[in-house]
């Protein structure tokens, strides 16, 4: 494939969601259809790009396929109540901006994409939450990244990431600024609380889409490791310990959380911290495990947040994990989907996460034999928390206050089944996914 056609496909993949956002805002009645078509177009363009990409450097294209598929899933799983022009337009805007960040090889464009993905969460017409911590975290991470890129520019360096590789542009100041950006954007301890605030107070599905961009991990994989290999090898243990500590801290924190949204956010955060710990293990197993886990966390958390939102729409927004709600009686299929996504998130066999967590544990234990032990402990705690949430939401005697509601609708059922199939088939034949991460 010629560079020109590759460039055209990238433009199509990125601009389709943006154009879809504008169209959805104009033709509000057909918002879901437009969003689905735009996201599907992105999927097709990304798939062609992936097919044409040379084998050793396919990470960008793989992530583009994953995220555009996630966008299709998000638009289909979105309940009718939330399917208005502003939500759909905001979601498509986030999708386009995230794909831009994945595809670009230019620092300035990366910075613009970084800012654009966070923008709808500052805008009250879109997804702005009433709490301050998400805005502060997004703001601080953006300031840190902007300063880092300004310093690189001031040092007279070019903006092409490929040309900056292994040159440590801007020195240690830039390195630490990038680390600060990762800490705030990823929600690494002690800057973790914004993730739960955003999930609880913002719209569930768009927030899941934002969190699943995994910009912190992207920054590590795309900038920090290639640009600062020497600093990374010396100082990475610090970030790695922080990631492992976050995974454990948040896992412990989730044990007593009763708000389902906050609980899911903590689990997503803890499992995402495992991605960072794997990337920073500097072992082939750890890095491959982290990238496969990226896939798993993305699909599972989107499924879990989507199901939770469907439950909120059906049974009210006062769901809690402090008592049994017995929703499985009304929604048995949603219960099964929930437990499947939940188990997939925490490394159950038969799912892709069994493979990813096996690799992650091997990688982190080989890299840090003592602190690496925190990873299986954190994963075990996350498993207990997700099962507790499942038990409390779906099992037990049904509360009399709930009216009779429909189980998963065909639209929701099909897309959730497709996601489950991806996780299960990925678990049965993991080499196909592991091969993409090499």
């Amino acid at each position, binding site marked *: 494939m010629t560079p020109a056609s590759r460039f055209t496909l990238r433009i199509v993949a990125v601009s389709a969601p943006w154009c879809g956002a504008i169209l959805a805002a104009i033709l509000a009645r057909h918002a879901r259809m437009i969003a689905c078509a735009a996201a599907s177009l992105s999927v097709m363009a990304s798939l062609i790009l992936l097919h044409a990409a040379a084998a050793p450097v396919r990470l960008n294209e793989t992530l583009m396929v994953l995220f555009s598929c996630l966008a299709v899933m998000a638009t289909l799983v979105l309940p009718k109540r939330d399917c208005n022009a502003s939500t759909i337009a905001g979601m498509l805007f986030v999708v386009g901006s995230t794909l831009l960040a994945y595809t670009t090889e230019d620092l300035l464009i990366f910075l613009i994409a970084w800012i654009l993905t966070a923008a709808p969460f500052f805008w009250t017409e879109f997804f702005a939450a009433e*709490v301050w911590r998400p805005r502060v975290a997004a703001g601080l991470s953006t300031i840190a990244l902007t300063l880092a890129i300004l310093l690189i520019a001031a040092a007279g360096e070019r903006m092409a990431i490929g040309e900056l590789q292994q040159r440590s542009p801007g020195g240690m100041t830039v390195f630490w600024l990038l680390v600060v950006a990762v800490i705030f954007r990823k929600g690494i301890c002690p800057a973790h609380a914004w993730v739960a605030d955003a999930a609880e107070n913002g719209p569930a599905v768009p927030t899941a889409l934002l969190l699943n961009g995994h910009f912190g991990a992207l920054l590590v994989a795309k900038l920090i490791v290639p640009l600062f290999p020497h600093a990374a090898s010396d100082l990475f243990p610090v970030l790695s310990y922080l990631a492992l500590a976050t995974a454990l801290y948040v896992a412990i*924190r989730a044990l007593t959380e009763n*708000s389902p949204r906050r609980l899911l956010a903590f689990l997503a955060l803890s499992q995402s911290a495992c991605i960072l710990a794997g990337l920073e293990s500097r072992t082939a197993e750890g890095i491959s495990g982290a990238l496969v886990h990226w896939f798993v966390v993305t699909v599972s958390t989107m499924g879990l947040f989507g199901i939770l939102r469907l439950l909120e729409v059906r049974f009210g927004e006062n769901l809690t994990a402090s008592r049994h709600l017995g929703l499985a009686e009304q929604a048995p299929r949603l219960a*099964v989907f929930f437990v499947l996504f939940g188990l997939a998130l925490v490394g159950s066999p038969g799912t892709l996460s069994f*493979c990813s967590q096996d690799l992650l544990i091997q990688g982190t234990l080989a890299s840090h034999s003592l602190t690496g032990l925190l990873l*299986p402990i954190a994963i075990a705690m996350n*498993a207990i928390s997700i099962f*507790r949430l499942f038990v409390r939401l779906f099992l037990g005697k*049904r509360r009399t206050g709930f009216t009779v509601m429909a189980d998963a609708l065909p639209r929701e059922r099909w897309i959730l*089944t497709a996601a489950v199939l991806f996780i299960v088939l990925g678990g049965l034949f993991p080499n196909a996914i592991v091969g993409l991460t090499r």
Partner: protein
Amino acid sequence: MIVDFWQATLALVVLLPGAIFVVLALLWLMGWVPRERVISRLTHLTFSLIVLALTAMIWHLSASGASSIVITFGNWFAVHDYHFPLALLADRLSLPFLLLTAALSGLIGKFSATYLHRERGFLRFFLLLQLFAFGSLLAFAAGSLDLMAAGWEIVGITSVLLIAFFQQRPAPVENGLRVFAIYRACDIGLLVGVFALHHWAGTASFTNGFPSLHETQSAMIGLLLLFAAAGKAAQIPFSGWLPRAMEGPTPSSAIFYGAISIHAGAYLLLRVQPLLAQSMLGSSAVVVIGVLTAIQGSIVGRASADAKTSLAYASLTQVGLIFVEIGLGWRRLAVVHILGHATVRTLQFLRAPSMLHDYHKMHAAIGGELTPAGRHLAKLFPERFQLWLYRWAMDRACLDTILDRFIVDPLMRLSRLFAMLDYLGLDGPWRRPEEVPPSMQNVARQRGE
């Protein structure tokens, strides 16, 4: 790769229940609900075929004089030097377990078709039975500890979902959660043990036996795997989950806690017995845990008020003795003990509901109660000690209390402390009090703000 008839049969034996589970579950998710007769016949057919195949394999092995059938599918996944070998092994240790699993699963399927007739969750039970059979067959036929861990965890998940089978009642559901927590905590031992084996021996595969390791390394791996096995087999200090698991339907209690799942830990130790034998510490720990569990199970079982719990503790006692046999290196005796115990205990569990009925009939016939038996041991102790022992047994050896006080409660306190730290500043200058979301208002109220 050329696969001969027996290798293909072994692969089919393991994969068949898994494939049936996946197909039925997907069809149900898409909206199809099969009739009871279809489900029970399919189950009957599946396990009959598997039993036939396994019997033929045993006959083939004894006739040909071969020691094992091994099928290798290469690596499930491989990265750099690390690989996850996908190999199945049917040898003199695994074949009896495979046959026992298939035969008892078929029996339980047949029994449950009547026992759970028109019960809500009929399909769910049979789906979980297929998944359990797949997990067990995978764990017993695994050619490496990696693959055994996969089957091991599947058995754990199905076990928990069946404990919570009567989902409308809060007690089974909460007990399921407790059992899940203990399983997951103990599985850490298996995961880290497998890592250690990869790290020191280069592989966790045992199709060609275990490599010889340094005594300290063997001891560490042995202790990690013992931790995992103790969790699965409800050995001390994890015995508290076993009576909680009795909340599930009787057929699942029979196959899980009378026959297969409860012996999975013993099977793991039997598999790694060559490693345990390399370390005095590892084998001694197995013996000590086994002895303590057997004593505890025997005493607590005598004070149990209901039939299923009493049977559960009887199982625990026997499994403790099996651990002792493994620790002492009496492998053949342990295998025979497991096979005999699993069969008898399954029968006892399945008979438990009708046995109570029979007792009532007998009491009515003789116009009083049958003469109590089994008090000859109690008479050996002074009366005050008997009373203390009775109270200790009624508290189920205080094992749950110890776990709660020293592990669960501190962890929960730490979690609540982290929650308080998380909410710091939320009602500060940037936030008006009415903006505090409901879940945070409780914390703010507790802090008196």
